[in-house]
């Protein structure tokens, strides 16, 4: 159960050899997870060097804003996925939630409801879908993988039902600002992503609730014994995460000017891949949004670089797969253990 490359003697030796000095760096390096961050960072730099040699356009501000915009929608969903994974859960339905949210908002706009009200109502709906996930998992004690596999089908089905499988075109209007607009030269969607990312990061790191999210993922029984309301917190996390996906769904719809029931179909696995690449453990209790951000960014950079260097687009998926396998394998080797 206890997997660690750092033995107790080493820790004690460290503590005795360096009582106070550079404790922070040592503590940082002692955490398994931080090696993952370092590895990602190095990989990112190597990839950037390669692409900037291969394409003169790669290292331009415009291209980096493109990358930022490209990763923002999935990035927002990845924030939610990270939080769920840290609690030791999983949510396969979040891409479908984004699709339903987009369809609902587009239908409302078509019915002449104002943009703001449509967005708000659609987000409430997204929260409601999250509540369904939470209720199934917490009340009926269903494994999150199975529960959200069920709701993935359910929600995706609903997205088709809304318009009998047709796209809903809303065209370019004031709405488009969210997905296509710029604020002081930066894409609005990227700003939304970065703001949500920073808020979620601060929330996880500095709040009592954020602290409990990690603790629940580490040992939910210990948390229950300590009087933490584990089930209530889990429930609200599924609601919160679905609302994050809702925001992503709205941005996507705004960007495309169209809501489509197949929006982000299959993206849930890509998003999980990005999050795992960022060093979040499937067993919960560890990881941080910094890792998720680097994972998302690395995938975004590779996708972008492969386009710029005119590699056939399907290689992107191959690259993501290879990257994920290499990352988790290195991680497993370093821990000196793995799947048995």
């Amino acid at each position, binding site marked *: 159960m206890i997997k660690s490359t750092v033995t*107790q003697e080493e820790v004690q030796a460290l503590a005795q050899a360096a009582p106070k000095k550079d404790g922070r760096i040592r503590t940082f390096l002692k955490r398994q997870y931080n090696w993952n961050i370092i590895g990602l960072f190095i990989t990112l730099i190597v990839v950037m060097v390669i692409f900037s040699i291969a394409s003169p356009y790669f290292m331009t501000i415009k291209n980096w804003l493109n990358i930022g915009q490209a990763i923002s929608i999935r990035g927002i969903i990845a924030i939610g996925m990270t939080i769920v994974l840290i609690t030791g859960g999983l949510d396969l339905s979040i891409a479908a939630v984004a699709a339903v949210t987009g369809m609902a908002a587009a239908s409302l706009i078509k019915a002449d409801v104002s943009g703001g009200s449509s967005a708000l109502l659609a987000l409430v709906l997204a929260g409601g879908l999250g509540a369904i996930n939470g209720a199934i998992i917490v009340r009926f004690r269903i494994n999150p993988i199975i529960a959200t596999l069920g709701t993935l089908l359910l929600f995706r089905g609903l997205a088709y039902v809304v318009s009998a499988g047709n796209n809903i075109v809303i065209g370019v209007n004031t709405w488009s600002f969210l997905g296509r607009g710029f604020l002081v030269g930066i894409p609005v969607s990227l700003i939304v992503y970065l703001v949500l990312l920073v808020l979620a990061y601060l929330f996880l790191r500095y709040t009592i609730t954020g602290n409990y999210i990690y*603790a629940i*993922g580490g*040992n939910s029984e*210990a948390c229950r*014994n*300590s009087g933490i309301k584990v089930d209530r917190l889990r429930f609200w996390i599924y609601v919160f995460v679905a609302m994050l996906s809702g925001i992503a769904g709205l941005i996507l719809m705004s960007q495309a000017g169209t809501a489509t029931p197949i929006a982000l179909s299959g993206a849930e696995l890509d998003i999980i891949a990005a999050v795992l690449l960022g060093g979040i453990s499937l067993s919960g*209790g560890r990881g941080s949004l910094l890792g998720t951000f680097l994972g998302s960014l690395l995938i975004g950079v590779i996708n972008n670089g492969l386009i710029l260097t005119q590699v056939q687009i399907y290689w992107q998926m191959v690259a993501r797969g290879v990257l994920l396998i290499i990352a988790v394998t290195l991680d497993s080797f370093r821990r000196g253990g793995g799947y048995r």
Partner: protein
Amino acid sequence: MQPILTMQEVSKSFGHVEALKNVSLDIYPGEILGLLGDNGAGKSTLIKIISGVYRADQGKFTYQGDEVHLASPSEAQRIGIATVYQDLSLVDTRPVANNIFLGREPRRWRFLLNRKKMEKDAAEILERLKIRLPSVSVDVEVLSGGQRQAVAIARAIAQGGSVLLLDEPWAALGVEQTHQVRDLMKDLRSHGVAMILITHDLSDILSITDKIAILRHGRLVAFLNSKETSVNEIIGWITGALKASTQEALPA
């Protein structure tokens, strides 16, 4: 001196099975009570009733002289009865300080974690209990079994426990680590903490405990003073070789 915790005629059944029958016990501050008995004798049931996990069907509890009804573990914990669980129930992936204050973290502006104060207080508690750890900011998973057990006990104390329930605290520990935990218990005793110890390990039981309560088939069959008994007598009571009427007939 007034007992910190008393139980009178406590009974508990599961369906047709009577797990506990009219058990009465007193425990005093600064006392280590060994709770012994064979598997299925009712030790766990009794501990779970005291820690608020189960509710007794009958019987009366008083804590520091007041009658109490323990409806849940958190309620028991609130009044000062803390359980150190057999499976340790620490959060391996979290630092020592977070574990010690789990569920009772010092706060800032109600919803923010006051990490600085938490780490400082954790270090103070560890120092007071003479528990030596590399740092309060290392994750629990890098600690040894004995250190982990010590952290679990420190948590119980930090959460205001004046009665500790220890379920097999050294079941998974080596010799050296077992000694560390025993020393810690003796230290706590001198601070006036009452402890109820469940164990199968009879070696040193006489030196670590002050009193020994022995359950058999859900009944309290013997309540012994550790200084006036022997391991053989204890085994006699646990196995049923000794019975209340035949006690004098057998050598102690």
